Protein backbone atom coordinates (compact mmCIF):
# COMPACT_ATOMS: atom_id res chain seq x y z
CA UNK A 1 0.00 0.00 0.00
CA UNK A 2 2.80 2.37 0.94
CA UNK A 3 4.44 1.72 -2.43
CA UNK A 4 1.15 2.28 -4.24
CA UNK A 5 1.01 5.89 -3.00
CA UNK A 6 3.93 6.70 -5.27
CA UNK A 7 2.27 5.14 -8.30
CA UNK A 8 1.16 7.53 -11.02
CA UNK A 9 -2.56 8.07 -11.65
CA UNK A 10 -2.39 6.26 -14.97
CA UNK A 11 -1.15 3.05 -13.36
CA UNK A 12 -3.67 3.27 -10.54
CA UNK A 13 -6.47 3.67 -13.09
CA UNK A 14 -5.18 0.66 -15.01
CA UNK A 15 -5.08 -1.39 -11.78
CA UNK A 16 -8.56 -0.21 -10.80
CA UNK A 17 -10.05 -1.12 -14.18
CA UNK A 18 -8.51 -4.56 -13.78
CA UNK A 19 -10.24 -5.03 -10.43
CA UNK A 20 -7.92 -3.53 -7.79
CA UNK A 21 -10.39 -1.59 -5.61
CA UNK A 22 -7.63 -0.21 -3.38
CA UNK A 23 -6.39 1.84 -6.34
CA UNK A 24 -9.60 3.90 -6.18
CA UNK A 25 -9.00 4.55 -2.48
CA UNK A 26 -5.58 6.00 -3.32
CA UNK A 27 -6.94 8.08 -6.20
CA UNK A 28 -9.70 9.56 -4.02
CA UNK A 29 -7.33 10.26 -1.12
CA UNK A 30 -4.82 11.85 -3.48
CA UNK A 31 -7.25 14.23 -5.18
CA UNK A 32 -10.14 14.71 -2.76
CA UNK A 33 -8.92 18.04 -1.37
CA UNK A 34 -8.49 19.65 -4.78
CA UNK A 35 -11.78 18.37 -6.15
CA UNK A 36 -13.84 19.04 -3.03
CA UNK A 37 -12.18 22.46 -2.61
CA UNK A 38 -13.05 23.33 -6.20
CA UNK A 39 -16.69 22.32 -5.71
CA UNK A 40 -16.95 24.11 -2.36
CA UNK A 41 -15.47 27.30 -3.86
CA UNK A 42 -18.42 27.44 -6.25
CA UNK A 43 -21.20 26.12 -4.03
CA UNK A 44 -20.29 27.41 -0.55
CA UNK A 45 -22.42 24.74 1.06
CA UNK A 46 -20.79 21.68 2.56
CA UNK A 47 -23.75 19.34 2.21
CA UNK A 48 -24.41 20.18 -1.44
CA UNK A 49 -20.65 20.05 -2.13
CA UNK A 50 -20.56 16.54 -0.67
CA UNK A 51 -23.47 15.53 -2.91
CA UNK A 52 -21.74 16.90 -6.00
CA UNK A 53 -18.44 15.26 -4.99
CA UNK A 54 -20.28 11.97 -4.65
CA UNK A 55 -22.06 12.34 -8.01
CA UNK A 56 -18.74 13.25 -9.63
CA UNK A 57 -17.07 10.05 -8.45
CA UNK A 58 -20.11 7.94 -9.30
CA UNK A 59 -19.65 9.11 -12.89
CA UNK A 60 -15.92 8.46 -12.65
CA UNK A 61 -16.46 4.94 -11.31
CA UNK A 62 -19.08 4.12 -13.97
CA UNK A 63 -16.89 5.42 -16.78
CA UNK A 64 -13.82 3.56 -15.55
CA UNK A 65 -15.73 0.31 -14.93
CA UNK A 66 -17.30 0.43 -18.36
CA UNK A 67 -13.76 0.93 -19.75
CA UNK A 68 -14.89 4.08 -21.52
CA UNK A 69 -12.10 6.25 -20.08
CA UNK A 70 -9.23 6.99 -22.37
CA UNK A 71 -6.14 7.52 -20.23
CA UNK A 72 -4.09 10.43 -21.46
CA UNK A 73 -2.42 11.35 -18.20
CA UNK A 74 -5.14 13.89 -17.42
CA UNK A 75 -7.15 12.17 -14.72
CA UNK A 76 -7.50 15.19 -12.41
CA UNK A 77 -8.55 17.68 -15.15
CA UNK A 78 -11.07 15.11 -16.38
CA UNK A 79 -12.58 14.69 -12.90
CA UNK A 80 -12.58 18.47 -12.45
CA UNK A 81 -14.47 18.84 -15.73
CA UNK A 82 -17.12 16.36 -14.55
CA UNK A 83 -17.43 18.28 -11.25
CA UNK A 84 -17.67 21.56 -13.16
CA UNK A 85 -20.51 20.24 -15.34
CA UNK A 86 -22.37 18.94 -12.29
CA UNK A 87 -22.01 22.34 -10.60
CA UNK A 88 -23.56 24.00 -13.66
CA UNK A 89 -26.37 21.41 -13.61
CA UNK A 90 -26.94 22.20 -9.94
CA UNK A 91 -27.34 25.94 -10.60
CA UNK A 92 -29.52 25.29 -13.64
CA UNK A 93 -31.76 23.00 -11.61
CA UNK A 94 -32.15 25.62 -8.91
CA UNK A 95 -32.42 28.41 -11.49
CA UNK A 96 -30.41 30.81 -9.43
CA UNK A 97 -26.96 32.22 -9.14
CA UNK A 98 -24.58 31.21 -6.34
CA UNK A 99 -26.04 32.04 -2.98
CA UNK A 100 -23.83 33.49 -0.31
CA UNK A 101 -24.71 32.58 3.21
CA UNK A 102 -23.88 34.90 6.01
CA UNK A 103 -20.93 33.71 8.09
CA UNK A 104 -19.07 35.24 11.00
CA UNK A 105 -16.23 36.28 8.71
CA UNK A 106 -18.26 37.41 5.74
CA UNK A 107 -21.46 39.32 5.55
CA UNK A 108 -23.09 39.98 2.20
CA UNK A 109 -24.30 43.30 3.59
CA UNK A 110 -20.71 44.46 3.99
CA UNK A 111 -20.44 44.73 0.19
CA UNK A 112 -24.07 45.46 -0.58
CA UNK A 113 -26.00 48.50 0.48
CA UNK A 114 -29.13 50.36 -0.47
CA UNK A 115 -28.04 53.91 -1.26
CA UNK A 116 -31.51 55.24 -1.92
CA UNK A 117 -32.96 57.57 0.69
CA UNK A 118 -35.50 56.43 3.18
CA UNK A 119 -38.98 57.97 2.88
CA UNK A 120 -38.23 60.24 5.83
CA UNK A 121 -34.93 61.42 4.33
CA UNK A 122 -36.58 61.97 0.95
CA UNK A 123 -39.19 64.22 2.59
CA UNK A 124 -36.41 66.15 4.37
CA UNK A 125 -34.47 66.50 1.10
CA UNK A 126 -37.56 67.82 -0.70
CA UNK A 127 -38.17 70.29 2.13
CA UNK A 128 -34.55 71.50 2.01
CA UNK A 129 -34.82 72.06 -1.73
CA UNK A 130 -38.03 74.06 -1.29
CA UNK A 131 -36.34 76.19 1.40
CA UNK A 132 -33.30 76.82 -0.81
CA UNK A 133 -35.56 77.91 -3.69
CA UNK A 134 -37.35 80.33 -1.38
CA UNK A 135 -33.96 81.78 -0.37
CA UNK A 136 -32.95 82.18 -4.02
CA UNK A 137 -36.18 84.09 -4.69
CA UNK A 138 -35.09 86.65 -2.08
CA UNK A 139 -31.81 87.42 -3.91
CA UNK A 140 -31.30 90.53 -6.09
CA UNK A 141 -32.24 89.79 -9.72
CA UNK A 142 -28.67 89.87 -11.16
CA UNK A 143 -27.33 87.46 -8.51
CA UNK A 144 -30.36 85.19 -8.80
CA UNK A 145 -29.93 85.01 -12.58
CA UNK A 146 -26.27 83.90 -12.35
CA UNK A 147 -26.97 81.40 -9.57
CA UNK A 148 -29.92 79.81 -11.41
CA UNK A 149 -27.87 79.46 -14.61
CA UNK A 150 -24.89 77.96 -12.79
CA UNK A 151 -26.63 75.61 -10.36
CA UNK A 152 -29.88 74.65 -12.07
CA UNK A 153 -28.95 74.90 -15.74
CA UNK A 154 -25.38 73.69 -15.20
CA UNK A 155 -23.89 76.41 -17.39
CA UNK A 156 -20.25 77.49 -17.29
CA UNK A 157 -19.32 81.03 -16.22
CA UNK A 158 -18.17 81.65 -19.79
CA UNK A 159 -21.64 80.78 -21.12
CA UNK A 160 -23.30 82.84 -18.37
CA UNK A 161 -21.16 85.86 -19.23
CA UNK A 162 -22.04 85.53 -22.92
CA UNK A 163 -25.77 85.28 -22.28
CA UNK A 164 -26.00 88.01 -19.64
CA UNK A 165 -23.58 90.29 -21.48
CA UNK A 166 -21.25 90.82 -18.52
CA UNK A 167 -17.62 89.78 -18.06
CA UNK A 168 -16.72 86.41 -16.54
CA UNK A 169 -15.33 88.19 -13.48
CA UNK A 170 -18.61 90.02 -12.94
CA UNK A 171 -20.53 86.75 -13.25
CA UNK A 172 -18.15 85.12 -10.75
CA UNK A 173 -18.58 88.08 -8.41
CA UNK A 174 -22.40 87.90 -8.62
CA UNK A 175 -22.25 84.18 -7.84
CA UNK A 176 -20.03 84.91 -4.83
CA UNK A 177 -22.34 87.61 -3.52
CA UNK A 178 -25.37 85.37 -4.12
CA UNK A 179 -23.88 82.64 -1.95
CA UNK A 180 -22.80 85.15 0.74
CA UNK A 181 -26.28 86.65 0.86
CA UNK A 182 -27.90 83.25 1.12
CA UNK A 183 -25.55 82.31 3.98
CA UNK A 184 -26.42 85.53 5.78
CA UNK A 185 -30.16 84.85 5.54
CA UNK A 186 -29.66 81.26 6.68
CA UNK A 187 -27.68 82.38 9.73
CA UNK A 188 -30.06 85.21 10.52
CA UNK A 189 -33.15 83.00 10.50
CA UNK A 190 -31.29 79.94 11.80
CA UNK A 191 -32.57 77.80 8.96
CA UNK A 192 -31.45 74.18 9.07
CA UNK A 193 -30.61 72.89 5.63
CA UNK A 194 -29.12 69.53 6.44
CA UNK A 195 -30.50 66.11 5.79
Amino acid sequence: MANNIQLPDSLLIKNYVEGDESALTILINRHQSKIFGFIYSKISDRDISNDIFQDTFIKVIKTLKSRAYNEEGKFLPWVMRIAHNLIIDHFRKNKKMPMYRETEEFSIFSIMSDDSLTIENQIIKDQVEIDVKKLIEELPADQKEVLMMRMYQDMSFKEISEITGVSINTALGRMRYALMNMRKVIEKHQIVLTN
Partner: protein
Amino acid sequence: MAKIYSTKIVANKALKPKKETVSFLLNYSKALSIIKVKSFSFEIMAN
Protein backbone atom coordinates in the same frame (compact mmCIF):
# COMPACT_ATOMS: atom_id res chain seq x y z
CA MET B 1 6.54 46.44 14.14
CA ALA B 2 5.14 45.88 10.70
CA LYS B 3 1.42 45.48 10.42
CA ILE B 4 -0.02 42.63 8.47
CA TYR B 5 -2.75 43.89 6.21
CA SER B 6 -3.45 40.66 4.42
CA THR B 7 -7.04 39.50 4.71
CA LYS B 8 -8.07 36.45 6.61
CA ILE B 9 -8.46 33.25 4.66
CA VAL B 10 -12.17 32.53 4.78
CA ALA B 11 -12.11 29.04 3.36
CA ASN B 12 -10.07 26.28 4.92
CA LYS B 13 -7.44 25.10 2.49
CA ALA B 14 -7.62 21.50 3.61
CA LEU B 15 -11.22 21.01 2.58
CA LYS B 16 -12.20 17.41 2.42
CA PRO B 17 -15.44 15.57 1.76
CA LYS B 18 -17.14 13.71 4.59
CA LYS B 19 -15.71 10.32 5.49
CA GLU B 20 -19.17 8.87 4.89
CA THR B 21 -19.15 10.18 1.32
CA VAL B 22 -15.78 8.59 0.56
CA SER B 23 -16.81 5.38 2.29
CA PHE B 24 -20.04 5.28 0.25
CA LEU B 25 -18.08 5.72 -2.98
CA LEU B 26 -15.66 2.91 -2.15
CA ASN B 27 -18.51 0.56 -1.24
CA TYR B 28 -20.45 1.61 -4.34
CA SER B 29 -17.40 0.85 -6.46
CA LYS B 30 -16.97 -2.57 -4.88
CA ALA B 31 -20.63 -3.43 -5.43
CA LEU B 32 -20.85 -2.22 -9.02
CA SER B 33 -20.06 -4.34 -12.01
CA ILE B 34 -20.67 -3.23 -15.53
CA ILE B 35 -21.06 -5.82 -18.22
CA LYS B 36 -21.06 -4.89 -21.85
CA VAL B 37 -22.89 -7.07 -24.29
CA LYS B 38 -22.54 -5.86 -27.85
CA SER B 39 -23.81 -2.27 -27.75
CA PHE B 40 -25.63 -2.73 -24.44
CA SER B 41 -24.18 -1.96 -21.06
CA PHE B 42 -25.58 -3.59 -17.90
CA GLU B 43 -24.97 -2.24 -14.44
CA ILE B 44 -25.12 -4.86 -11.74
CA MET B 45 -25.19 -3.93 -8.08
CA ALA B 46 -24.11 -6.70 -5.70
CA ASN B 47 -26.13 -6.01 -2.61
